[in-house]
């Protein structure tokens, strides 16, 4: 059953048609990769799904409900979390706090219970902390122990990316949108992250939709690959099908190159 369905989505910025009549769907439990040359509209698509940009035309359905007109925080609450292409942590908050913030939409205590430190407040706070520590434990020894209380900006680049994924996990999502999760990582880290993406689905049951440029990663984990170019879907299928699709090769390498190759 399709968890995310997009019908005839359109978005223009001034005269630029960033997304032009896009249809796609992601089934529950799938790992779908979205590829495409720079400027194809991949990140715009994520921003539209997560509510950061308003939708011009078309329909986005998540779990059977429309996301049109909802605020980003409502969409997160429905169970759709995301990471950002250029890692955007809260750099001056501690590692643990970064994850605890993400529990915001799953917790309820307000001003008065915080001031009076009610029993429910203390209980919820303890649960939030325990949950955050548990999620950080998912990344092995990298983000635990003394790291809990370090500000996020002292982390290495790879650890920042991991923390961003941890933050997305902490919102209890059904589906996670990963925007170039391996950008800027070295080959070893990339391999490790590829395994981790698989584990996110297999162990935690998250549905994954990711934008990725590294074809090793795409081949390694994707159930299905979708290629965008100029805001349209130009190919869809298994990695093999998409990688050998002429239109895709043309989009990446240009017309002349394909003509020369054929």
């Amino acid at each position: 059953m399709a968890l995310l369905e997009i019908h005839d989505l359109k978005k223009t910025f001034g005269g630029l048609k960033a997304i032009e009549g896009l249809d796609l769907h992601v089934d529950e439990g799938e790992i779908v990769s979205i590829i495409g040359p720079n400027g194809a509209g991949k990140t715009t698509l994520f921003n539209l799904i997560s509510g950061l940009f308003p939708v011009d035309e078309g329909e986005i359905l998540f779990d059977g409900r429309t996301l049109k007109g909802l605020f980003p925080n409502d969409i997160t609450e429905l169970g759709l979390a995301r990471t950002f292409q250029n890692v955007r942590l809260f750099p001056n908050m501690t590692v643990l706090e970064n994850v605890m913030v993400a529990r915001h939409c799953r917790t309820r205590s307000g001003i008065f219970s915080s001031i009076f430190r009610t029993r429910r407040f203390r209980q919820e706070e303890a649960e939030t902390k325990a949950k955050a520590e548990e999620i950080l434990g998912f990344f092995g020894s990298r983000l635990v122990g003394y790291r809990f209380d370090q500000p996020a900006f002292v982390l290495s680049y790879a650890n920042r990316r991991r923390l961003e994924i941890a933050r997305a996990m902490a919102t209890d999502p059904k589906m996670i949108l990963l925007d170039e999760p391996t950008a800027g990582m070295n080959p070893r880290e990339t391999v490790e992250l590829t395994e981790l993406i698989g584990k996110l689905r297999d162990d935690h049951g998250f549905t994954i939709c990711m934008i990725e440029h590294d074809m090793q990663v795409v081949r390694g984990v994707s159930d299905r690959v979708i290629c965008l170019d100029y805001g349209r879907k130009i190919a869809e299928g298994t990695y093999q099908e998409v990688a050998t699709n002429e239109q895709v090769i043309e989009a990446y390498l240009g017309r002349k190159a394909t003509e020369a190759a054929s």
Partner: protein
Amino acid sequence: MAQATEATAPAKPGDASPSMAAGVDLAKAARLGLIGGATASFLSAIGMVTSFDSRMLIDPYITLGYAVLFLVPFAFGYLAGRPPILLEGQLPAPVGLRNVTAGAIAGLGTGLLLAVTVLIAANFDLRAVFVNLSPAMVETLTFGQSLGVGIALLIAGCIVFGALGGAVNVISSRWRAPIMTGLLWVFTLALLEDLLSQLFRGLNLDSLIRVFYAPGGGMTALGAAIIFVIVLALAMWLKRRPPQVRQKFEALNKSERQRWVAIGIGLTAVLLYLIPIVMGGFMSEILDLVGIYLLMALGLNIVVGFAGLLDLGYVAFFAVGAYMTAVLTSPGSPAFAPELTFWAALPFVVLAAAVAGLFVGTPVLRMRGDYLAIVTLGFGEIARILFLSDWFKPVFGGAQGITQIPTPSIGPFEINNPQTFFYPIMFMVIIAAYISWALSRSRIGRAWNAMREDETVAEALGVNIVTAKLSAFVVGAALASFAGALFASKVGAVFPNSFSIVVSIIVLVIIIVGGMGNLAGVAVGALVIVGLPQLLREFDEYRFLLYGALLIFMMLNKPEGLIPSRRRVAELHQEEMGQDAWMGPEQQEQTTVDSTASPVTTTS
């Protein structure tokens, strides 16, 4: 530039090592001297030196005027004599006569420029433009001597103080800090004469006053010497063995810790009880004012420091608090006078302020940064103008305001003088501090923090920005209304002009200077910004000049504030600490594993 001056100083011993750092730059010293001269001339031209001359610091040698005047060549002499920054692999050049010479050159520059100012003031009447370039100023600057002798003395004095400033760099670092601390304490205690004699009088220690302070004002030379020696010895001793209170405290077990905390709270309570009794009416009046500003600063700290919403119209909520109190309690309220007691009115006051918070917060929900600042600035002025307007005159009394506001009472105790007012103000301050503390360690506090760091991401992570912003405005407004209520009942009347934009600015300066996000910092900020100008009435006239200078100094040298929150230090010195970002995870793991105890040091 460094090479050029190298040639002019052949006295340098043959530099065997090519990596020796260049000595002090004498041309730079001359330039600094000219800047110093401009500064000193400016201070004289605005009348600071002349008007401060009547205040004796150390009887009968130094007046505040001369202290301020000669502080300029001293400071610029110090800057001129400071060794240049070492590059990696360089050996420091030996300090010595050259540093003192540089200081003297800076002093000479200052003196010459100042002499020009004196000559101009003596020969031309420029008082149409510069009111203070008067014969009185000339007389002060020439030490009451004839023009020629006076100017020679002035230049000589500047050179001496410049050289002394330069010489500070020569003293070994073991002595430098204690000596400077000693001088600073003598200067401070001499300035705080009013406060301290009041304190001693309150403690019945009249004989001590006579040792330290001369009858005509100013500290006695003996007193100054005693204080200098005591502070010097203490500073040397503390330097050798820094007290490790925090480590010792953390080493204690839980019950012992709780006992010490209880003792601390008890002592603070006793101290707070005694302060107004010992300090007397005048000092209590100042402390009350500090407390009211502190209350506002704690509230604004939530809005700006925690939630990152730069609100320049904060005075609006203070005004709402004051006016609501006036309307609800005063029998003189024009339209509607329920004549409630202070405490009965308080819930309504807070409610009104919370509504005002929503009212201001809602239209600015989608604004960030500078735009938010400008719009809130407008709201602050709108509030004042509305209270002043003819339209609301039937309710708020227009320019006549509302008078006859009754004082509060607790049971049979009437709170009707500055000393007794100290208690409800402190009570509110403690409550406000607790609220800040509790909220900063809660779900809401984390949401505010996240919003301050990156609003878009916070929203994408499920933080409801609308609720978070509005709650910050509402809590801030409620705390400001406490301050307003206390202000109204303490003064006994409210007028629109008490709520000008300056109040917002001062409150903002308090949290910037004190240290944003830190409660102790805000308290120190309130004491420095509001308390000191009241104590040092000479400075009151130059208050805004000093605020401006202080702000610039803080932004350049200590942007995190006097007592910063740990997070702010990290934030503002991020470039220095964040450099391990380029490290791969392997290296990072290696370097951090063996230093788990102090992971932060691995970044340096």
